[in-house]
């Protein structure tokens, strides 16, 4: 199985900063059985499929659907593949093509959910705690965070009044992690879908250097 070279960083690529609200993010699920990942009565993605436990909700890994196709969620990095490729990078670095079985395998039991960026990006949450007027605010931000294995990697992050959630120290995180993780889960559950949507690819000038 050849690695899809088109998703690797490329010397001609740049950071994506254009409006992507009409684009979809995609994330793998551990199962591709509908009953495992989707509650058909609620018509919502199950919590266990969003991210469980909540540890990674502060910087949730997704990919921009387009050049990155739905079948690519089945790419699973091996341990050595993770060490070599699972780190953030500049969009235009040169990367060796990952080798099947050595750096990655195909996990056919994986499924996916997708979410329209415009449904969650820059949405602010506002909390009241225990009837006391202790307000707490945070805003969801979608950021292009290219990885060595995937130029189309995007992160769902949260900015609080004390800084981005994933950059806070343990003490700061402790105060707000539960609330933010809950909020992040609820937002995804509310808007995520498991069908492949009609999606468009970004125009070349949006991600290629001139």
């Amino acid at each position, binding site marked *: 199985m050849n690695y899809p070279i088109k998703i690797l960083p490329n010397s001609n690529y740049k950071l994506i900063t254009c409006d992507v609200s009409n684009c979809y993010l995609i994330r793998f699920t551990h199962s591709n059985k509908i009953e495992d990942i989707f*509650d058909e*009565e*609620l018509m*919502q993605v*199950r*919590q*266990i499929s969003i991210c*469980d*436990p*909540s540890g990674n909700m502060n910087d949730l890994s997704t990919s921009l659907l387009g050049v990155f196709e739905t079948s690519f969620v089945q790419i699973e990095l091996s341990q050595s593949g993770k060490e070599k490729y699972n780190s953030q990078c500049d969009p235009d670095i040169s990367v060796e093509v990952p080798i099947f079985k050595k750096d990655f395998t195909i996990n056919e039991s994986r499924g996916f959910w997708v979410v329209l960026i415009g*449904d969650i990006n820059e*949405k602010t*949450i*506002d*909390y*009241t*705690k*225990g*009837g006391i007027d202790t307000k707490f605010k945070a805003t969801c931000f979608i950021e292009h965070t290219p990885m060595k294995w995937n130029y189309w990697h995007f992160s769902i992050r949260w900015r609080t009044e004390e800084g981005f959630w994933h950059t806070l120290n343990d003490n700061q995180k402790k105060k707000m992690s*539960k*609330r933010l*993780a*809950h*909020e992040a*889960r*609820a*937002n995804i*559950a*509310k*808007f995520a879908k498991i069908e492949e949507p009609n999606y468009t690819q970004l125009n070349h000038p949006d991600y290629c250097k001139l």
Partner: protein
Amino acid sequence: MPIPAAHINEFNSNQQVVWIAKNYTGSGSTGLLRDNFSDDEIVFFHSKQPGFRENYPGTYNSILISNSDRKLIHFEKSFKNQFELLSAYFQNLNFQEANEKLSSSLISLLNINPDVISMELTRDKSIFYTLKKQDYTFFIQHFLNEIEDDEDEAILTVFKDDNKLPSYAGSLLQTISELNTLLEPSNTSKLELELNELSN
């Protein structure tokens, strides 16, 4: 019309008796024997008059079964299965204690009579409920090992249609009270509408 069973010698623990408030015409039957985990129903005769209610020993909770009761039983069973599946993550959590906590939140939420409700146990030692009622979607997380004001801690996120409303964090009791506050105005206006219709 259902055909009444001639004799029911014994009930098993998965069955409950439901007394029917009125007779099936001509049959004289006054009760239904329902299976807790399926839609099976057996109509039976009883010498007592219709409308008589009695709790049978050996039934699941010895309560008159309703739709909410069915959901409660369903979720308790599901909770047990999920707890077993995730037990590796719950080393400091006792099932009996967790089950009692489930009942405390679940019964309150079922009392709201949601259109749809789901319950998921998470690895974060919490129960994650999703409820839909009217135009609202409620996400409630009940933490099984966190205490707020001597009570279990909970968080509520609410959407009206696709619009996000302010969220709430506090004790379980406060959180469910907050949820009820959101639903009350619409309940009140519905009641007023019904009263107006009746007076016309």
